[in-house]
């Protein structure tokens, strides 16, 4: 197909052609970045937690008034919860993945170090966390019964921090603290006393992710009776609703004077935690759909107008021997040329927008494969939009050439 006559015709109506190309360029730039943002948000909301989410339930209770003996209370609760049919195991812990509030500490790897190496979150395992969460132990072991220390003996004016001697950390935290080395047996320091790493787990996400790159930095300590202790139940694959209900009843029977604050499955916790990301992804999908629609309608409108204006020319061409197919392809090629020009400009604009987003929203650079995706979408859209007007052009009879208006 000869594109010379097309280019020549386009020069006669360059304003309209430029407008379409400009619109395509803008759409291309926005769509590439929107697609990238969507992928980024969805990735984030699917961030691995390292725990057996499908099988876990979290129960948070608040009591009215002072507790006489927190540890005895917790032991009794755990025993009661474990007795519920369908409950596989129970953990008492002061924070949970995606739960929001968290206890964080700067970790050092030598007692005299002035600046901490990394800020990690601290899970206080009141018993059964590794087993109940379903953490994958890559090396080392779970805590032994004699390693557990009471929170009160550690944290008080005359507390004895040397009693806390072991920790389990995530692989990523180990890699951050001692790059390329095996963390097992090495010591971390919260205060002046060494805490030995006895186990390494594959992953355990923070309760609250303020920076995605730090999401995996978690340490577990064998500390019982911490403030805000809550219960995590592993319930197997069955329905958790009946178990949650029963758990609330059991807890109230054990001590009537308290309020069950929250009961959530971990699926709910994750959903709630990443709600904003999913809403944003949904909005972006809507924006892309709206952009494609508006652009397509714009192309249909302008192409129809062109076909209408060029009735006589089309008739003349038909009379001079052009086939219907020639006419159809003429309009398709014309659209392809305009859209291609738009896409070419759109690529640069997409890159520029991405630069700006990187500066203001801490986004990674736009992976190059998004550009052909956006380009292909717009080529397809252009061809689809021009089809109806081009088909109408195809129907113009050669006799039009002989008529005068």
């Amino acid at each position, binding site marked *: 197909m000869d594109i010379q006559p097309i280019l020549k015709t386009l020069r006669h109506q360059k304003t309209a052609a430029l407008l379409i190309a400009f619109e395509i360029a*803008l759409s291309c730039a926005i769509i590439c970045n929107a697609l990238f943002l969507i992928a980024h948000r969805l990735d984030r909301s699917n961030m691995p937690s390292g725990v057996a989410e499908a099988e876990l339930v979290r129960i948070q209770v608040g009591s009215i008034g002072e507790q006489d003996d927190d540890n005895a209370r917790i032991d009794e609760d755990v025993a009661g919860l474990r007795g519920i049919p369908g409950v596989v195991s129970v953990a008492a812990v002061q924070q949970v993945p995606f739960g929001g509030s968290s206890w964080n500490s700067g970790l050092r790897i030598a007692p005299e170090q002035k*600046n901490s190496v990394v800020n990690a979150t601290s899970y206080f395992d009141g018993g059964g966390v590794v087993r109940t969460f379903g953490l994958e132990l890559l090396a080392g072991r779970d805590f032994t019964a004699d390693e557990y220390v009471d929170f009160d003996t550690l944290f008080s004016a005359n507390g004895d921090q040397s009693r806390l001697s072991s920790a389990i950390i995530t692989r990523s935290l180990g890699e951050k603290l001692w790059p390329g080395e095996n963390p097992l047996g090495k010591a971390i320091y919260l205060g002046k006393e060494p805490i030995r790493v006895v186990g390494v787990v594959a992953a355990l996400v923070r309760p609250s992710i303020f920076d995605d790159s730090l999401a995996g930095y978690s340490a577990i300590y064998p500390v019982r009776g911490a403030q805000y202790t809550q219960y995590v139940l592993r319930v197997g694959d069955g329905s958790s609703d009946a178990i949650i209900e029963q758990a609330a009843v059991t807890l109230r029977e054990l001590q009537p004077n308290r309020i069950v604050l929250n009961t959530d499955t971990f699926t709910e916790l994750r959903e709630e935690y990443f709600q904003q990301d999913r809403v944003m992804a949904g909005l972006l999908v809507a924006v892309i759909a709206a952009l494609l629609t508006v652009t397509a309608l714009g192309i249909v409108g302008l192409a129809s107008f062109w076909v209408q204006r060029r009735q006589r020319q089309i008739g003349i061409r038909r009379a001079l021997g052009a086939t219907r197919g020639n006419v159809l392809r003429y309009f398709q090629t014309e659209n392809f040329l305009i859209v291609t020009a738009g896409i070419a400009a759109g690529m640069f604009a997409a890159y520029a927008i991405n630069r700006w987003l990187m500066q203001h929203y801490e986004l990674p650079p736009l992976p190059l494969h998004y550009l052909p995706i956006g380009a292909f979408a717009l080529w397809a859209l252009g061809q689809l939009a021009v089809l109806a007007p081009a088909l109408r052009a195809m129907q113009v009879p050669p006799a039009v050439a002989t008529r005068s208006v």
Partner: protein
Amino acid sequence: MLHYYVWLAARSVRRNPALTALMVLAIGIGIGASITTLTVLRVLSGDPLPQKSDVLFYPQLDPQDSNDYRPGEEPPNQLTYVDAMSLLNANRADRQAVMSGGAAALVPDKQGLDPFAVDLRYTTADFFAMFEVPFLHGSPWSATEDAAHERVVVISRELNDKVFDGGDSVGRMLRLDDHDFRVVGVLDAWRPNPHFYDLNTGNYDDSEDAFVPLDSAIDLGMGRHGSMDCFGDEPLSPDETLRSPTCSWLQFWVELATPEKQQAYENFLVAYSEEQRALGRFERPTNVRLRGLMEWLDYQKVVPGDVRLQVWMSFGFLLVCLVNTTGLMLAKFLGRSSEIAVRRALGATRRSIFAQFLLEAGAVGAVGAVLGLALALAGLAAVRLQPVDYAELAHLDVWMFGAALAMALVASLLAGLLPAWQACSVAPALQLKSE
């Protein structure tokens, strides 16, 4: 003449309804999206206390030890109990209040009402006067009650309705956790947005259900909400952290009526910090801030980044809609080249042709504005369904209503400029000859 143009415009709509509808739709959707996101942004970046925000300040100090010190860092966002109380008792500002969020289980006397959790604010006497909190009954407690650690409470209108069935409940007792508090005041509805005085409990959170003197709450070990940063190697129990000089968890606000007072207060903060350094308590170089309310909100980035991103997105979309409309108008106007040629040949000036087409563009904008407003109302209704703390604030106000109209008109006129210019440049002789 205007009549004639309107008549021409109406005729043109009738001749080409699909194209006109498309233009109206494009402008409408673009305006609807932009106004929705702009309204949300406007609500979120609003001034919580317009009449006072310029005299309220948030002092910051850096009391930390030299571990983990990185020069140039901002001081912590909150104060330790020791510093907050020193600044409060120094009484150098017109008004000052220390505060933190908390929660307790409320055990109602009322029959048929189970114990439920309430959000609390632990604060000091000036809180109410400084933030101009409206009272329905009673009054705030005074510094005397603060000093005596008295168990008094100011409750919200909502809580008063729920627990005491409304009415003047001053003097009645309210049971929070295991402790009885005497009601001294009942507030009228009060919800500053953002929740500026404490951004730890949610930027656009509702204000609290009840207010209790800070020291009484600490004495009774009542539950605390918010964030706490401790430094130093001292192992402290949760109770000990509260009055410790090494744990920052309190917000502190001051009212300073004049620039002279602000300068004097900043000097006072520097002097206090220097004094603490001399005593050996502060180990880092003096690093104080005295940010005004709006500056503080800005520094804390209260407006979610996503909301700004949405605004940019909607404007990008509006731009595409505009370009689209320009193209369609061009098609539409040039489709009437013969009509233009005839009118020009009969003596119409370029200017009048230009005016006529611009008027037609404006008409498209006006209809587009109506559609855009309808879409914005729908969009805001959708925002209110979102599970975010600012959801219920998303309403269109008069200003945004006007902005929608103005934006649609300006947008459509901009879109019409180029097509109208091209239309009035149609050479009548050439056009008539070719027909």
